[in-house]
């Protein structure tokens, strides 16, 4: 077995580089609690309208009264509903999304609001919008021939009372 000295050094360099990268990611994950949207929560996608949470009348943004909010949305070919939502800036928001039909991907460019929307499972994203303005909510997973047309709007507004 022969491994060259220079090569051994390179192996160490790559190992250290990798440890640093993983270390930084771990620090953010553990230290700042940054995690991708996750969690095993089955739901019957064919009966969303019969659930309390995802019934049409209950969709949209709700102020929880404690400085946080909840946004509930449904993705269905070809749109995200409600198709216009308004949320306050600088407010921790728990976003809950379910699909009423096929696979979708929800993404709002320039924010951390991104998640796959998978039939049979509830997606949950916890985020705080840091800038006011108009944003597009785009579908980023092919969901059928109308996929390009699947988008809606999100408006981030100043906090009420401020």
């Amino acid at each position: 077995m022969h491994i060259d000295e220079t090569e051994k050094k390179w192996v160490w360099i790559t190992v250290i580089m990798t440890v640093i990268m993983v270390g930084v990611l771990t620090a953010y994950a553990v230290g700042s609690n940054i995690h991708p949207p996750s969690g095993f929560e089955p739901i019957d996608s064919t009966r969303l309208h019969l659930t309390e949470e995802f019934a049409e009348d209950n969709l949209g943004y709700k102020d929880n009264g404690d400085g946080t909010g909840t946004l509930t949305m449904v993705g269905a070919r070809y749109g995200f509903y409600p198709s216009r939502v308004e949320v306050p800036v600088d407010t921790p928001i728990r976003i809950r999304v379910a699909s009423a039909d096929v696979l979708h991907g929800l993404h709002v460019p320039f924010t951390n609001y991104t998640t796959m929307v998978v039939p049979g499972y509830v997606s949950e994203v916890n985020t705080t919008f840091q800038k006011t303005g108009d944003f597009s909510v785009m579908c980023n997973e092919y969901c059928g021939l109308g996929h390009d047309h699947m988008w809606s709007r999100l408006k981030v507004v100043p906090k009420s009372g401020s």
Partner: protein
Amino acid sequence: MSNKENSVGIGLANFWVALGFMTVAVLLGVYQVAERSGFFPSLESPTLYFASVSTHGVLMGFVLTTFFIMGFGYYTATTSLKMPIPGKGFAWFGFWLAIAGTLTAAVPLLTGNASVLYTMYPPLAAHPAFYIGATMLVVGSWFWCIEMIWMMLRWKKAHPGEAVPLVHFGNTANAIMWLWTTIGVGSEALFQLIPWSLGLLETIDVGLARTLFSWTLHAIVYFWLFPAYILLYTIMPKVIGGKLFSDEMGRIAFVMLLVFSVPIGFHHLYMDPFQEAGWKFLHMFGTFMVALPTLFTGFTVIASMEIAGRLRGGKGLFGWISALPWKEPVMVASGAAMLLLTFGGFGGIINASYSLNVMVHNTQWVTGHFHLIFGGTTVILYFAAAYHMFPRMLGRKLHSRSMAVVQLWLWFIGMLVLTLPWHVMGLLGQPRRISSAPYDDPLVQQWNIHEAAMIVGGVILFISTVMLLWNLYKTHSGPAQELQMEYAEAIHPAPRVPQLLNGFAFWNVVIGIYLIASYGYPIAQFFLNTTYGATPWGV
């Protein structure tokens, strides 16, 4: 004397099938960039576009690769081990099964009955012939895997205690990895997609299906990449007049690729619900581990190039680079591939990052990333292999070396022009897999210039493809020239290596345990809990 190994026929058949289907896919690619740009209103048609992208993805991802890898494996195995393919009928059966599978899947693809993209995510449902055809293609490739393993075992029996040539150590590592890899998509097809599309199952669990697909989705890229790495280690140093820097490091890299690439597929599920964050986090560690063999490879390959450069009289810190034989297709492709791999590697680290992935997930950035590494690094080395092997298989001179060199540079430039704008558009929020950009958002204005650039890239790549085909086709009728396949020697030849670097029995046990640890519970949870399946949906 003639050196006609019994792999020449099957090798050439595989190569031409791969190139033929690739050409169809390139044409579709050019149509796609034109259609999705929105500059040609008469082209707009989501129906055609998604049938086309589905076909392009399947042909590039599954068909070009599988056939190319089989041809490469057969020819390098017989020429490095100096033994014939055993059970040739068996090998040909696998080949014809793969052809039959490809044609079976092609019918629904081309008639718009399988516009579900190459990832075939349910609950969008394709015609059953699509899933059945794709499965036949994979099963066909298993015959090749068995051949590779069989040849390694036979050779070891005839050469007790000797080190298996690095080329075939790599081929076998890839074959074994592919068998492990295809368990995921294979189970998804056999137990979910096929019975469900035939109406035998009413619903399937989409979370389970996506988890099984993720099992395959990462390691498949290493299946594609393996022959490219094998070429860099064992063919390139010889062709450019140097030596392989380290045979043992090659083995270590191949073993690491084999062990680490399957159990880490959750980086494809970072943005999915139905898996807990902790599992994703663990897979992130594994994902970074698999960067190591690529970094080792980069070192060995560049060091081998430097040795060649210095042997050819190159001096100084960088002087050896210009001393390299830049008129040699294998050299040009290897240099270009290393550059593309460097760019692509940066992107890959972003994608693999547990917390950064959110910024690029499913945007056009991703399409840019895999065209760079797959369409770029990997495929350009496939071309190099073809330029190197066709003359040796046919016993004829390559039609034109200078045309080959131009072709490779054009491919390199074309891929950069195609993929850099995609990376930018991804960062500017463009979702992937769209046939138009109807969003009423000022962002869309910023995409236009990049949409124009990508069309230029597509056209360059098309021209490059034509040159490739012409050159190889003309080689069939070129002047006779007998050349042997020769493989690089290491600076420190390794006639004997530790048992662990000369066989895979132990590593198979390691992979088995690692897979159970990383996928056991995440798959079991779908059976331990009540979940709700989805019925098939048309596109």
